[in-house]
């Protein structure tokens, strides 16, 4: 499955880019994170503390157990600070 992965704020800074297209067979968000972390030190640093990571699948907030079935876009970011 081909996914667009987006990164925001300090997650983006640690990963080193804001967006990429990624081919994966990961079944869940947690599986995808495990694949990314294995790629290089930047990803490992970005995902070192999962309690500080939020995820949206196809632009809906979800959690690490969310399955990646037929989805097109996954975004990772720190807790939001709007307002």
């Amino acid at each position, binding site marked *: 499955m081909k996914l667009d992965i987006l990164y*925001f*704020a300090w997650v983006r800074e640690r990963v080193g880019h804001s967006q990429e297209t990624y081919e994966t067979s990961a079944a869940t968000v947690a599986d995808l994170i495990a694949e990314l972390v294995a790629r290089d030190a930047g990803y490992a640093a970005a995902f070192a503390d999962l309690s500080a990571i939020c995820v*949206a699948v196809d632009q809906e907030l979800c959690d690490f157990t969310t399955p990646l079935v037929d989805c097109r876009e996954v975004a990772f970011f720190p*807790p*939001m*600070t*709007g*307002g």
Partner: protein
Amino acid sequence: MSARVQEAAFDFAAEVTAFQSTLTRSGAVVSFTGVVRDDTGSLDHMFIEHYPGMTHAALQKFADQAVEKFGLEKALVIHRYGRLQPGEAIMMVATAAAHRKDAFAGADYLMDYLKSRAPFWKKELSKESATWVAAKDQDEAALAAWSSESAAKES
């Protein structure tokens, strides 16, 4: 209900006047604006990043929820992104209801959701440093209080 995400500044007074002019059954209008604050005197500017694909839909959803939950006639949310100087307005909400309690509660509810569930991230830049603003536990607690309040009413 209306929600806007924009880089440009907005005219708070003009927005509130326009909002009020469309009302037909409200006796109460509450408006709030959040402003870039410089706690230390060293802030050069704030940079606000957002998730373009998601932001507008999220603001719209929170405005709709506030209208539904508090029986508002109308709600408005405007939130900016990009580079902002100290003293500049970041965002505003306006709510209209028959009576003031619902208008205040609706605005408060909207603000709590914007703080913790709208996909914006603030970075504070000074001459010496650049720091992402951390989310506060109290903001999560404020959000949780709305859920437990609903649960208490329903039980």
